């Protein structure tokens, strides 16, 4: 799971090592990546919302 989260974070930034990408694609379980993507996505949205709320005060 930690691996998947790191890959999702790399995808958010848009930079990933080729080696790590190959490794991810050898994995048999796409569900882990989907779950990691959703979790990081929700955290990101909450973070942006938090910054917006703080800025609006």
């Amino acid at each position, binding site marked *: 799971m930690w691996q998947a989260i790191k890959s999702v974070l790399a995808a958010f*930034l*848009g*930079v*990933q*090592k*080729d080696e790590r990408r190959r490794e991810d694609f050898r994995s048999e379980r796409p569900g882990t990546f989907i779950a990691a993507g959703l979790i990081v996505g929700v955290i990101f949205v909450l973070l942006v919302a938090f910054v917006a709320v703080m*800025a*609006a005060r």
Partner: protein
Amino acid sequence: MRRLLMWMAVGVTLAALTPMVLANGWNMPEGVTAVSRDIYSLHMIIFWICVVIGVIVFGAMFYSLFRYRHSRGAKAATFHEHTSVEVIWTAIPLLILVAMAVPATATLKTMYDPSEADLDVMVTGQQWRWRYDYLGEDVAFTSNLSTSREQISGTSEKGENYLLEVDEPLVLPVGQKVRLLLTSDDVIHSWWVPELAVKQDAVPGFVNENWVRIDEPGIYRGQCAELCGRNHGFMPVVVEAVEPERFDEWMAQRKEAAQQEAMSADREWGLDELMARGEQTYGAVCAACHQPDGSGSPPAFPALAGNQTLLDEPDRHISTVIDGVAGSAMPAFRNTLSPVEIAAVITYERNAWGNEAGDTVQPSEIAERLAAQDE
């Protein structure tokens, strides 16, 4: 040495061009409000950030193209990726964007805070003029284009403020926070005055808010900035900013004039004075659609000259002008013209351009009908 000279020449040219561009009005104006100056400095900071980035990126690109060209035996590298370089060139723009967002957000916050205003003005877009309502003051008027038809058709020379002049500007006091409530009677317009850094859509059925606090007395001109039909280019905005004392005097005068106008609705008006008044109103308000000579542009805008059915039905003539024609471009003038103006313009239409109804429509008659409708 040659290269150094070349770069110096480029630098000097750029440095020489910048003030020229600024002085030429090609740049956005710095404006006359604190907000407009904030926006201007943001614009300049971000502009220079873009210039620096552009020079670096394109400089590197052109340098590489030139220096490592094929004819000099350059061989392409074949490595696939370089993670740390990629991280750096992603992180730096990210930081720059965040650094730009901080002051920009601060400015937006002030711009979107119309609270604690000293004066409220309702601004209503109409095809094709602006209407200004000083809320709580009982002063309201429409502001029509005053550029002459001859200038527009090209038969006389164009004035300095061609298409940027009106019969009655919006008068505002300097140094006071003025809240603008923008809406529209028909289609979407946009109230735009560059020097005040206000460009706000006026949308039918909605009220948008904005505000200005003007620092310097003066006349500031703008235009409708949302394509709104045939005369979109003929509904300018003119704001006259005056000292608060002058503003109060002006307001008192307007109130008195409004009272006199209301009182004059009671007396009997003669044909000639109604015709004179009606010609004014017709030229300012109706001619855009029905043409100065009443010929209209059928089938979109009916002719009023020689319109016999209309002359035979004075009652329908009056109700059309008061209530408009639902589902057509013909607006209701119940709220935008005074009883005197409505009576005068109808009398004018019935007796101008060869129309010979011979009758007058009295302001008192219109006032009665309006009062009856209000009940």
